[in-house]
């Protein structure tokens, strides 16, 4: 009975709290972007390499840059109120559509990366905790730190060289076989093949964090009395770890994973660049470079909604993991 109620309550609270946050984000970003030198017309005219005063004027009109800043903000908010993210003259399409094109791919990539990171992280962390203070622990933690401290693009390029150029097993970039007409399972396999390398590159960075976190949490939980109770029942170490320790240790990890969702979107820029992956991170980067504020604001808005959603999911997951959460306090 209380589980559903708990979930509904959490959801309602989150949604109510999200409104001011999102509004704050829009306004903050809007003014932040105003501070960046140059505007979309500069970029477009600059890219063209040749322009005239008239074409510049026309460009500014198209972007709505000829209005005072506050009017631009009001226009944007007006658009939002009608659930429209505006139109990007640079891309020649509504921002919603532009983002919509890339969102599924980005989300899958992020989800896969996060899944890989958590899976490997949990495994490494559990192993490290099991061998805490001994050689395997030391070696694994150095390995994890290596993953962490090697720049993402370096790993990315090395993986490409190894798996695409040398071995020829996996494609070097892109999000799927271009022009293929795969359906069903074949399509999934195809997509997965393209996703393995970028997801791994993206994940490795986080593996270290989860591994360390898991290790710490497991060590913490391991010393608690109820673990001893479990052993006293005659359970084997593996069962104790999986059934009793891990679940309790998952809570700080889910917290961290929630925090990483936003970070991943941004951290993906580099990986997306290396793998020519048509993702939102790259789009955001290009929007900054192109001073295409409607697109950028759209992405940032989406990202904040995503993060808030992720936080909610984390809250729910934690409420499920730990019955004490959400009931009291």
């Amino acid at each position, binding site marked *: 009975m209380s589980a559903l109620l708990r979930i509904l309550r959490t959801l309602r609270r989150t949604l109510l*709290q999200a409104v*001011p*946050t999102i509004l*704050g*984000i829009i306004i*903050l*970003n809007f003014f*932040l*972007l105003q*501070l*960046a*030198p140059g505007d979309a017309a500069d970029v477009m005219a600059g890219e063209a390499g040749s322009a005239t005063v008239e074409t510049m004027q026309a460009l500014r009109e198209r972007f709505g840059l000829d209005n005072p800043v506050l009017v631009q903000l009001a226009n944007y908010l007006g658009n939002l109120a009608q659930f429209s993210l505006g139109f990007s003259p640079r891309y020649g399409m509504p921002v919603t559509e532009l983002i919509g094109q890339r969102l599924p791919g980005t989300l899958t990539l992020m989800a896969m990366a996060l899944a890989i990171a958590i899976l490997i992280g949990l495994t490494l962390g559990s192993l490290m905790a099991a061998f805490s203070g001994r050689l395997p622990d*030391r070696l694994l*933690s*150095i390995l994890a*730190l*290596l993953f*962490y*401290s*090697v*720049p*993402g*693009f*370096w790993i990315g*390029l*090395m993986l490409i*060289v190894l798996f695409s150029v040398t071995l020829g097993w996996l494609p070097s970039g892109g999000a799927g076989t271009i022009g293929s007409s795969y359906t069903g399972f074949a399509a999934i396999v195809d997509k997965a093949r393209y996703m393995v390398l970028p997801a791994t590159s993206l994940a490795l960075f986080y593996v270290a*964090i989860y591994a*360390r976190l898991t290790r*710490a949490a497991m060590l913490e939980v391991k010393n608690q009395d109820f673990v001893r109770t479990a052993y006293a029942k005659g359970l084997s170490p593996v069962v104790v770890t999986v059934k009793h320790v891990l679940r309790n240790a998952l809570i700080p990890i889910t*917290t961290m994973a929630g*925090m990483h969702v*936003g*970070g991943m*979107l*941004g*951290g993906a*820029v*580099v990986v997306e*660049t290396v793998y020519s992956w048509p993702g939102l*991170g790259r789009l*955001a*980067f290009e929007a*900054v470079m192109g001073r295409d504020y409607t697109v*950028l604001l759209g*992405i*940032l808005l989406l*990202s*904040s909604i*995503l*993060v*808030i959603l992720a936080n909610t999911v984390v809250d729910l997951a934690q409420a499920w993991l730990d019955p004490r959460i959400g009931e009291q306090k």
Partner: protein
Amino acid sequence: MTTETAVTHAATPIQSRASATQAEKPDTPQWHNIKAPDARTTRTASVSVPAGRRELAAFLRNPNALFGLVFLSLMVLVALIAPIAFPGDPLGMVGKPFLWPGQDAAFPLGTDSMGRNVLAGLFHGARISLFVGLTATALGLGVGITVGSLAGYFGGWVDDVLVRIIEIFQTLPNFVLLVVLVAIAQPSATTVSVAIAIVSWPMVARLTRAEFRAIREKDYVVAARSLGFRHPRIIFKEILPNALPPLIVTASVMVATAILMESALSFMGLGDPNVVSWGSMIGNGRELIRTAWYLTFLPGLAIVFTVLALNLIGDGLNDALNPRFSEERS
């Protein structure tokens, strides 16, 4: 019924010192009754260590931490002596381009595509990378801890407002925000540090807040309040030391993140072009990864080892600051 039931040397009431309040006073040296079982295992030496030194001693006893400390000191030393060891601009094009390490004794680690001395770059790069890493972390920690502890400690509307602010920054994709900030402020070591601090503080704030919320409810904090401690004392002396472990781990990770973020910025061409950093060396060398891999590998190695050292120090600090661990290790 007020007779002594056992023969004892304390048969006569003993006058206590200053207060003269006790019915009895311990018969000191051998007073075995205060046995504190654990006390027996504690060596007297560690008992007499004055506060503060114990942590240091515990830290220095930890071989990992010591290794980290030595390596980091070495790096700091390298940064300090860089101008003496390699006077002149590390960006100077002093040799033939693409000399491999060992190929020319004048450039033990080779030269890059423009004929710059890689070793000089590594030395001078230590200055900037450590500067960026440490400054950004210090700033991020400072702001994050302040905001997080205020939110977590006071709760209520203070918390509501601060959490909104944290959330606003947290939901922005870090790297994109970083790019925007650098685009606004022009790349330089300082602006890059500040920008990295701006994107990294929310994480610290969240963590601190969570810790503070949990610890705030602990009995020893309630006890501190009951003793009339004021807020700053409770925040900084009672709660903060207990909230440190995750923060220390985060801090050591943050230094690494900052160094790497600077490198990613350089990768995207948004670093400070007038100074060398490990990140910029990697950024410059990345296109050459296939032909002259040492150009990315060497600064990469420097980063890896520094990060490793920092993490070892972090772990060591954590253990040392935790009276339990340092005890067990001894």
